């Protein structure tokens, strides 16, 4: 095996591995007699030196259990900033849950959402408002007059829908295979106002 190929393999292993990697493991993965751990170790040292310059954003380092790939510490603020930028295009599981409740039960109030989820969802509702996926739509005429929430135009555009009523029924979601559909939660006094009084 060419030394440059071995080097490429070592790099590929390091950037795809989740934890530290040993020279023995790489040697074993290559499976050729002449590629001994000592040789791999040597190549890993070379890689470390090559990457260790200001214009590179990755480092190979020796740690307790072997070698691992990491980013230089001084770049952390940028990675953090990037993470923040990228997370605007992501949605937490909690946000997806609240969004689905608003979508399927609109108009709905925060107390009702909290009741269904069994946890306070005020922060998530705020995030969804900021992202313009839900909007306020009047107040419910009950004690405390809580705000009612509905999905927005942007929500419909994202899902390719004309109306919120076009959201899939759980039964039609999986063709041929019925999904268990839970009964509606009780809509009594404490329930999440099924028989809703609109604004």
């Amino acid at each position, binding site marked *: 095996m060419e030394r440059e190929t071995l080097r490429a393999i070592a790099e590929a292993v390091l950037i795809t*591995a989740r934890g530290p990697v040993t020279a023995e493991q790489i040697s074993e993965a290559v499976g050729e007699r002449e590629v001994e751990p000592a040789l791999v170790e040597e190549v890993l040292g070379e890689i470390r030196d090559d990457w260790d310059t200001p214009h590179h954003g990755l480092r190979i380092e020796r740690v307790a259990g072997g070698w691992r790939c990491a980013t230089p510490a001084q770049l952390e603020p940028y990675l953090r900033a990037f993470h923040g930028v990228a997370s605007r295009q992501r949605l937490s*599981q909690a946000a997806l849950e609240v969004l689905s409740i608003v979508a399927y039960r609109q108009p709905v109030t925060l107390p009702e959402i909290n009741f*269904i989820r069994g946890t306070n969802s005020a922060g998530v509702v705020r995030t969804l408002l900021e992202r313009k996926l839900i909007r306020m739509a009047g107040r419910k005429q009950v004690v405390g007059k809580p705000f009612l929430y509905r999905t927005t135009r942007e929500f419909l555009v994202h899902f390719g829908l004309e109306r919120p009523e076009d959201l899939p029924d759980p039964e039609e979601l999986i063709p041929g295979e019925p999904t268990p559909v*839970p009964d509606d*939660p*009780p809509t009594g006094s404490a329930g999440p106002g099924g028989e809703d009084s609109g604004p």
Partner: protein
Amino acid sequence: MNQVSTGKAEGTLHGPALELPSFSGPLDLLLHLIQKNRAAIYDIPIARICDQYHEYLAAMQEVDLEIAGEFLWMAAWLLQVKSRMLLPAVAESGEDPRAELVERLLEYRRVKELAGILSEVHAMRRGMWPAAVDAGLEPEEVELDWEDVDLEAICRAYVEVMERFAADHPPPLEVLPLRYTVERTMRDLYGRVRSEGMVPLLRLLHTRNDTEEVVTAVVAMLELARLGGIHAEQRKAFAEIYLRPGQRELDMDTLLKEREEHGTRDAESHR
């Protein structure tokens, strides 16, 4: 083009001893036969192709393959086209009975071509592993790419939420028959107040950890006070409530009998 497909759910042809190539659908089989005959899609020798198609189905049946409805549909269609070709009236009209078939085959062939291209790209790129270096930031919440959140994802999320809600809120327990009746409690309480002269109500209630018993005792006490059989007194807010004999002496037997006849079920209406 003459591949052995792995059409899974549809028109599945499987079985160990199978020599026949399998096809992802009737159009796939038809296309294969046309190519085998070196025929042009625009001028299908329909009689020959129809016969070969039926031979293929017969061979499938011989090896006990279940033939999907679509293959039979196509067989019937081919027969129909074949017989229409033989009608002099159709021949004279200049209308080609094969036209729709041709259209369908051309469209399907285009799909198959593209599938072939995708297959090559897929084979080539399948071996690329995405980089998975940890950024070293604090463990992040699992987040979904907004791009990936489609109708299915939002519907599934809703189903999951409601399932969890249903699990957390099992249907209410059935109402058990009352274990404490106001009548009996009235009799006990009245008897105690008469014999002891003074009963601290709150202390009495605090020693009972059964809600039903507490409710019944309160109702019984109020009823006795209304009838004047006992006197309740509280010096200041939140202080102990003392029960003493009232100004009227009650004949409990007669009283309770009357109550029963009137059918007043205080305990129930107060639940």
